[in-house]
């Protein structure tokens, strides 16, 4: 995977360390590393102090219940530390995506609900491990390095000033006047900078690697997350299906029935109204009501056909086929009814493709075949037309591909120019995320 490059900065700290030294020393990496280490030492110290403060206060006040609450909150300290450290990684990983949290997303906004939710969750062992490492070991190593870097650079920079008041000695090289101290200071400044730049960057990079291992979501959690995503996608498809059914039922039981009743009334009126202009108007009204009914029926069919709900794929596809202007052979044999989203996907693939065939393919025959093959529903539509069909070419097929995708299925379109067109849909018969 390619990562966006920040101008002039090597993509990772390790790459910068291994690369051209001059470039490394002039880059922002040494400063980033220093900032990271300085931050780590402060945070580690605060964690260390905070942990013992909480434990001590917690034990002392445990008699008045508050203490128990404090003690129970200690794991959250580590969770908060982990969250902070994941954010701080950005200092050392510019331009890279941030580390995924191993915790599930919070369900409500605000830090209170965050606290409540995290307290109820088990503390990941790796996050605890990172906190303990940082609070006991890493923070003072980082502090030593960060502090000494500043100390040495400051000393070397101030060498002439120090020599003015006192003797300035570095590794047996003594100077007691500012002029003598100047070259020592300059050389020392460069050497210290180079030394601490490499040490600090290496240390920070190592700590970043450690943090990435201990604070990121592990494989199992990632898989769980994928499962959750799949499930939510299926839920969406399902909700979509339910909503379509609801709309269909509404139209079917409401508007459509009223229109049918209207045609009945008009039909009766035709028998009773005497011949003349009045009867002509009634006949016209009857015709218009029937046209409205036909339009509505067509619309309902596109939303979710009732015959699909009642009788399944074969009957619904046969009904579509029977309405086509070209002969369409239907041969669908399924051992049982399939889950509603699968049936709907198959039906709409068949109906969409066969409509396209009738409209654009210039075909004279078409065959729809459906069967179950190793837990997969397979549906093929083959015509003898001119070919050249594509999924994205303004057809409704693109939406169907998305729908199938969510169900774990796929759609293959084989349509060379000159034909014939073969469409093959595969979709797992069972829906389990």
């Amino acid at each position: 995977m390619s990562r966006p490059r920040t101008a002039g900065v090597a993509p990772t700290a390790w790459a910068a360390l291994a690369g051209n030294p001059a470039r490394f020393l002039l880059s922002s990496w040494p400063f980033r590393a220093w900032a990271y280490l300085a931050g780590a030492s402060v945070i580690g110290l605060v964690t260390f102090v905070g942990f013992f403060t909480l434990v001590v206060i917690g034990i002392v006040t445990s008699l008045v219940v508050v203490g128990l609450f404090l003690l129970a909150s200690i794991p959250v300290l580590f969770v908060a530390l982990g969250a902070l450290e994941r954010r701080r990684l950005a200092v050392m990983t510019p331009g890279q995506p941030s580390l995924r949290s191993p915790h599930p997303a919070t369900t409500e906004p605000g830090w209170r609900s965050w606290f409540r939710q995290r307290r109820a969750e088990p503390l990941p062992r790796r996050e605890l491990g990172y906190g303990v490492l940082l609070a006991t070991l890493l923070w003072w190593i980082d502090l030593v390095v960060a502090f000494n870097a500043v100390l040495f650079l400051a000393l070397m920079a101030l060498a002439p000033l120090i020599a003015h008041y006192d003797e300035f000695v570095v590794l047996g090289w003594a100077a007691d006047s500012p002029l003598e101290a100047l070259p020592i200071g300059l050389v020392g400044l460069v050497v210290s900078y180079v030394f601490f730049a490499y040490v600090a960057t290496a240390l920070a990079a190592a700590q970043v690697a450690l943090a990435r291992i201990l604070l990121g979501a592990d494989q199992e959690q990632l898989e769980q997350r994928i499962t959750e995503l799949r499930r939510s996608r299926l839920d969406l498809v399902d909700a979509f299906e339910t909503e379509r059914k609801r709309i269909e039922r509404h139209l079917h039981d409401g508007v459509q029935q009223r229109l049918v009743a209207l045609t009945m009334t008009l039909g009766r009126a035709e028998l009773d109204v005497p011949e003349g202009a009045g009867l002509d108007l009634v006949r016209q009204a009857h015709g218009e009501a029937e046209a409205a009914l036909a339009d509505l029926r067509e619309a309902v069919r596109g939303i979710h056909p009732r015959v699909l709900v009642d009788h399944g794929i074969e009957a619904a596809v046969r009904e579509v086929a029977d309405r086509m202007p070209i002969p369409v052979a239907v041969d669908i044999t399924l051992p049982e009814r399939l889950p509603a989203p699968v049936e709907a996907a198959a039906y709409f693939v068949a109906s969409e493709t066969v409509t396209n065939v009738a409209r654009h393919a210039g075909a004279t025959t078409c065959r729809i075949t459906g069967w179950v093959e190793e837990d997969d529903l397979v549906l093929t539509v083959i015509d003898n037309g001119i070919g050249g069909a594509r999924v994205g070419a303004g057809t409704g097929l693109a939406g169907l591909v998305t729908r199938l995708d969510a169900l774990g299925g796929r759609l293959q379109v084989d349509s060379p120019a000159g034909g014939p067109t073969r469409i093959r849909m595969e979709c797992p018969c069972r829906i389990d995320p």
Partner: protein
Amino acid sequence: MPDRSLKVVIAEDLALLREGLVGIVERGGHEVVAAVDNADALVTWVHNDPPDVVITDVRMPPGLSDEGLRAAARIREEHPQVGILVLSQYVADAYLTSLLEAPGPGGTGYLLKDRVGHVREFLDSIDRVADGGMAVDPEVVRQLLGRRRDDGPLAGLTAREREVLALMAEGLTNGTIAARLVVSEAAIRKHVGNIFAKLDLEQGTDRRVSAVLTYLRG
């Protein structure tokens, strides 16, 4: 208009349509002895006082699947002489199959609900069913014919024979077909003879509609 009054029981769960049906049937001069909204009530009514014709929706409470159809099958079993006219929202093979599988002295009909608005034809269908004949929706027949378009024997029919076949499948008598196509009844008889010969069907006048439909369904 028919000059006799039939006893009719209507079963339809949607009040609006039930009322419309009652109005149309009464307009035809028939007596609606009961208009019910579920299949059980229909069976009970027919059991207590068998009418001439039953008009029932396929889908009815409680299950809203094919209760009407199952009620029709029970009625056919218990009172074979009662004519049964089934109304459905859409063309479904399964409905036609179960209707064809229940022959009896009583007539059988399968119409789409939309057809009821064509009052004259609907009343004709009731008459045919009451007389022990068949009434099949033209849309159903059209789809059946369309399905067999490029098959062997059917392709051998002339355009006129095809027209006659479609009207036969709807359940019309030779006389009615002749009137529809504005030709003599003798001409229709000749066409019917040719059709039966070409399709290799039994030349019986008794059950010719179901024979034709069964043939068309393949």
